[in-house]
């Protein structure tokens, strides 16, 4: 019973004033009664190690690696016992949002997606890590790649740490390049070269259906960066959805919709809602190029071990940005309602240390966000990492904008893209509308947060 009533108190400490709490019903009585009758009592021994709950979003092999790391931490830190629970799957990240809304969060979680960090941080449901970092003599601006350090800092405070990162690049099929008269050792650099390669690699059957297509541009939220665009200007605090660069990025994407049958292309490429199946178009030679990330290596190994493939960074137009990438991924955070923040920090500090990051990133073949690990010979000996690490460290690596409404804006971007690519709408009009709507939404949400 002890444990139950204790958790009740901590819930009461949360700011859960729903108007209801003014009622004089004894909440504790209701809960204890129900808890006793339905769930039984949980026992906790006072002298044992302090138990902290950690939510992870990784699955499969990556989950196993996490499990080993946690086991190692528990072995070496007898005063703390980390219980790892996984929240992976389609609804995993949804559950995290609901947990925040419901005030029932664990002590540490790596299930916050970079896109959501600002929304949580600005709603004060995360614990800022600055004082912990300072007491542990850590400085994110010196340890992390610059883009990553910017990404985890919201309003001047650090709200999360990362252990892995991935890069946007384009994978291409070497055999198809050779067959179509392209030099696989000199893949496209500019947008024009990409367009011409895509044209050359596209083939139709006698009735005009695709046998193979060259390239399908998708994800406007990413493509604005090589075009020199962005979504948000942090200096002026304005959304820049319809900037000229963004418009030219969407116009470029729309040029594919004019040349090719997008719907057919999409049906071709998104079998089962995802390209990562053995008959994903890239693995069976139905597309020459595919926009992807470091994870591609594992998929090729699993689905098309014979495939000869190469990579090149996102092509850019004249005046655009070379070697651009977006940054995202899972972020480790300590929720504000954490019951054992010191122990949570000890765990988080250990998980984001050089050795743990090195083990984790190498096992799952992700880019290490820590500069010291990225310089490690282990990673420098790998050709793909030698290619992607400089992109990650470069000036054109962009994390999600620190906007409280970013997830909403991002899904609106996706819809805007669809209405151009599949609905044939005009890019300028669509982006102007997006700009208006997202500015309104941002103003509304900001008013809610600071009424």
């Amino acid at each position: 019973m002890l444990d139950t009533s204790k958790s009740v108190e901590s819930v009461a400490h949360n700011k859960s004033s729903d108007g209801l709490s003014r009622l004089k019903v004894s909440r504790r009585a209701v809960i204890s009664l129900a808890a006793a009758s339905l769930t039984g009592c949980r026992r906790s021994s006072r002298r044992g190690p302090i138990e902290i709950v950690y939510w992870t979003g990784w699955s499969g092999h990556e989950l196993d690696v996490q499990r080993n790391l946690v086991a190692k931490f528990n072995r070496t830190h007898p005063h703390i016992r980390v219980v790892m629970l996984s929240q992976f799957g389609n609804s995993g990240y949804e559950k995290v949002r609901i947990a925040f809304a419901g005030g029932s969060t664990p002590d540490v979680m790596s299930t916050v997606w970079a896109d959501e960090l600002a929304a949580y941080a600005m709603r004060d449901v995360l614990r800022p890590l600055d004082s912990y970092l300072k007491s542990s003599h850590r400085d994110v601006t010196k340890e992390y790649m610059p883009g990553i350090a910017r990404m985890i800092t919201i309003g001047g405070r650090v709200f999360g740490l990362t252990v892995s990162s991935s890069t946007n690049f384009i994978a291409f099929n070497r055999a198809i390049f050779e067959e179509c008269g392209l030099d696989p050792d000199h893949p496209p650099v500019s947008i024009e070269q990409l367009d011409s390669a895509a044209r050359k690699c596209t083939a139709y059957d006698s009735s005009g259906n695709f046998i193979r297509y060259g390239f399908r541009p998708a994800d406007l939220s990413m493509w604005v960066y090589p075009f020199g665009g962005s979504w948000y200007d942090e200096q002026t605090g304005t959304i820049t959805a319809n900037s000229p660069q963004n418009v030219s990025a969407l116009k470029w994407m729309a040029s594919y919709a004019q040349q090719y049958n997008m719907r057919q292309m999409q049906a071709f490429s998104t079998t089962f809602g995802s390209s990562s199946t053995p008959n994903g178009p890239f693995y069976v030679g139905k597309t020459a190029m595919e926009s992807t990330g470091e994870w591609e290596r594992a998929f090729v190994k699993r689905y098309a071990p014979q495939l000869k493939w190469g990579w090149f960074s996102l092509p850019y137009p004249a005046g655009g940005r070379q070697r651009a990438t977006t940054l995202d991924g899972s972020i480790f955070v300590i929720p504000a309602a954490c019951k054992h923040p010191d122990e949570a920090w000890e765990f988080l500090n250990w998980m984001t240390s050089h050795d743990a990051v090195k083990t984790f990133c190498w096992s799952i073949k992700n880019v290490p966000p820590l500069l010291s690990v990225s310089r490690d010979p282990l990673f420098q000996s790998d050709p793909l990492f030698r290619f992607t690490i400089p992109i990650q460290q470069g000036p054109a690596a962009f994390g999600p904008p620190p906007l409280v409404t970013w997830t909403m804006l991002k899904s609106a971007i996706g819809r805007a893209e669809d209405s151009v690519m599949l609905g044939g709408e005009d890019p300028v009009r669509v982006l102007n509308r997006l700009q208006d709507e997202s500015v309104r939404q941002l103003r509304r949400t900001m008013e809610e947060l600071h009424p």
Partner: protein
Amino acid sequence: MNTSMKSKRDTLNGVLFASPWILGFLTFVAYPLLASLYYSFCSYDAISPPHFIGLENYRIMLTQDSLFWKSLWNTLYMAVFGLPVSLAAALGIAILLNQRIRGIAIYRTIYFLPSITPVVASSVLWMWLLNPQVGLINTSLKGLGMTNPPDWLSDPAWAKPALILMGLWAVGGGMVIYLASLQDVPVSLLEAASLDGAGTWAKFRHVTVPSISPVILFNLIMGLIGTFQYFTQAYVMTNGGPQDATMFYALHLFNRAFQDFEMGYASAMAWFLFVITLICAIAVFRTSARWVYYAGESS
């Protein structure tokens, strides 16, 4: 025994027996109903306390949220096109199964099973069946000579019909209720109709349908409510896509509430839905006087 004492005791017992539900109604229906009405006039993110903003949510909903209208249209599409088809299919199958022949239990089980299959499992299964390239449905259609079968869930024009098709597979719930009511159709009436020279269709039209019309009404109302709350299939299979073709009202509402933390706005949407449901239900009841016959009312 004293009558007033008995009536007092009856009242006490009546309230006592019904008290769990009365308590449940107050806690989980009456209070939430009023609370959500209040939230609908607030901006509320479930993390900080709600604060009153008047009709703002309703104004944005009706004038600025294009997805609101889209989701409303998608939901009405299901109600107008999907619901009648599935009601008719359920009745047809119920009639087919209402026979005393060997093995009927097995048939009934097979026909009923899809409706009790976990929605998550059946959604996943149908994503597979509906796959444009390797799905069973398109493979069969191609086998039957169709050269260009639809892309189903990846085509905005076919995504809703695909979900209706999947719904047809799971008509068992309505079917069972029809089946039960068919067993109550007075045999004497059917025999009398036969003697009068009525054919199968005439008997169906003039005897069976009137006798089961209350059940048709029941299934219609329940189906309408179910359609307005259509959620899990879209959440699991399409998450609203392609091009918002399966962004249904309940899904949009859920996303606004639990993805965007716009609980106040979602409450406004919920109340709007409640009003629409109420209007539809009243409209159906109004017209029902013309086509629903209650036994004992007249013959």
